[in-house]
């Protein structure tokens, strides 16, 4: 694992343009209050890592950004478009926001190439040859072009997750969301996926990543957010966050995950 921080790489500049804004967002699952008064602003080029104990609402928060979950009160504005029940807004946002899941969720009945080319072909309505060309480009970028004609079931977990990343990138999103991308992987395969994510960050992608990989946070993140019980407890730059946690709950969490 590359321990040097990648901060300062030319691609990783943060602009003033606001990509995501969440204002006073609350969400309930039935009676259970899962997100409490979330206020968050994400600028273009930021790499945000969200950590916290399970059940804290981290995944729910990022799933609200592309409307895989609905929020009940508050506003979520993504790339200038407000997320409401309007299906046209939702589909517009989903075209610009890519998501990588813990369970990969590749389509098992399609080849790797078809998985990646599906969305450009059917959502951006590109001709098949162009869609496949783009798919091959991104497969090369995640370093598995030779697997293009295989089916997902024939690949290892690390390879499948890299295909999933390539699949999202084929839509040329402006924001990438990662929901615990390495949590379902064997330890040997975590590095290959994190390397892809680091390269993506260095190229300037706006990213929000829910993860337990604190090494990744130190290397790449410009902001670390700690959530517990549905609230944002603390957010800070990585050095400050890890070396100088403010809240007691943050301190407790860090002591549990960093000292074993």
């Amino acid at each position, binding site marked *: 694992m590359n321990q040097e921080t990648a901060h300062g790489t030319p691609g990783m500049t943060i602009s003033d343009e606001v990509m995501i804004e969440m204002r006073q967002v609350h969400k309930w699952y039935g009676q259970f209050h899962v997100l409490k008064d979330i206020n968050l602003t994400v600028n273009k080029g930021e790499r945000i890592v969200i950590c916290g104990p399970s059940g804290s609402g981290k995944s729910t928060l990022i799933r609200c950004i*592309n409307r*895989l979950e609905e929020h009940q009160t508050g506003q979520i504005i993504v790339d200038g478009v407000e997320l409401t029940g309007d299906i046209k807004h939702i*589909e517009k946002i*989903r*075209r610009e*926001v*890519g*998501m990588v*899941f813990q*369970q990969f*969720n*590749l*389509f*098992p*009945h399609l*080849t790797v190439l078809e998985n990646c080319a*599906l*969305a450009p072909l*059917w*959502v951006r309505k590109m001709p098949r040859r162009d869609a496949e060309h783009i798919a091959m480009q991104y497969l090369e970028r995640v370093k598995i072009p030779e697997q293009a004609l*295989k*089916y997902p*079931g*024939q690949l290892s977990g690390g390879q499948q997750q890299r295909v*999933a990343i390539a*699949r*999202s990138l084929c*839509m040329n999103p402006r924001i990438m969301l990662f929901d615990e991308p390495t949590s379902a992987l064997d330890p040997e395969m975590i590095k290959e996926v994190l390397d892809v994510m680091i390269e993506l960050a260095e190229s300037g992608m706006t990213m929000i990543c829910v993860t337990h990989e604190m090494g990744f946070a130190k290397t790449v993140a410009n902001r670390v957010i700690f959530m517990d019980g549905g609230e944002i407890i603390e957010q800070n730059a990585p050095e400050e966050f890890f070396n100088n946690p403010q809240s007691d709950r943050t301190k407790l969490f860090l002591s549990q995950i960093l000292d074993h």
Partner: protein
Amino acid sequence: MAATHVPQPDLPPPIISVGVIGWMRRNLFSSLPNTALTLFALYLLWLLIPPAIQWALIDADWSGTGREDCTGGGACWVFVQVRFYQFMYGFYPEAESWRVNLAFGLLIALAVPLFIRAFRWKGWLSAFLLLGYPVLAYYLFHGGSFGLELVETDQWGGLLLTLVLAGVGIVAALPIGVVLALGRRSQMPIVKALSIAFIEFWRGVPLITVLFMSSVMLPLFLPEGVNFDKLLRALIGIIMFQSAYMAEVVRGGLQAIPKGQYEAAAALGLGYWRTMALVVLPQALKLVIPGIVNTFIALFKDTTLVLIIGLFDLLAIIQLALADPKWLGFSVEGYVFTAAVFWIFCFSMSRYSQALERRLHTGHAR
């Protein structure tokens, strides 16, 4: 300093027993109870099969013109041979039977390319077979235009009628069933309620009552003089009935698709219909091929019920022939023949579905 590790070579497994003898030892004679069962099963086969073959093949009479040609003491296949045209075509005029032959020949010729992997226009061919061919076949069977003599649907019978009923029923029930299954799983309350109502109604009544009501009660509700073709009524009843069953089979498949598939498609920006057509249905339908083919096979055999509304499918035609005073006493031959024909079709569907399942597993880790 660590010693270099030399991996152990792969060894072949021990030879317990090989070949046919080995298989028999493991599967038929592995224990005392199993051996006893095997011997009992062999005894039963010895009791049943040789007499059956003796009756059906060895002592049977195969050719002739009338009852008096059945002298062998075995099966009288002369009965089948003499009435063969009627069993196959029903009351269709013999002079026009070339039209039926042409239609079925065309179907087979057009369907063959679909089984050839290298064929590249499968999409267009399938579209024609589903939409264009039925119209063509209808005009060939029915006539009345293009200089072809009119043959009313009451005259269609025998295997011809069975295949028309089953074929149309199968081709229509699957898409309607898929739509109903999607409707039942929909978030829209009206669509969901209508789908559930349709499915539960048509599943709740026996097919025989559906046919009976369509034949007897429907004319009571229609204005004077309006006459709905009887075959069409039977077809609609069969289609409605089977789509309800098909909907539940497909719904089982839809439920088995992990939520992550729907989410991944949604996150990529695929809308509802694209998600269903490109991601969910291909996987769901593949999962429930056994259930779908089961429904098809049941449909094929359910077509025999149209007897009660006066349509003469294969079974009905044979029963009619058995009532002929010239051929009394040959009911065994008649029913054995019917059973054999049905078995050939149903078994072929079953084998095809297994081959399809094997082929569609390519590359999937299962």
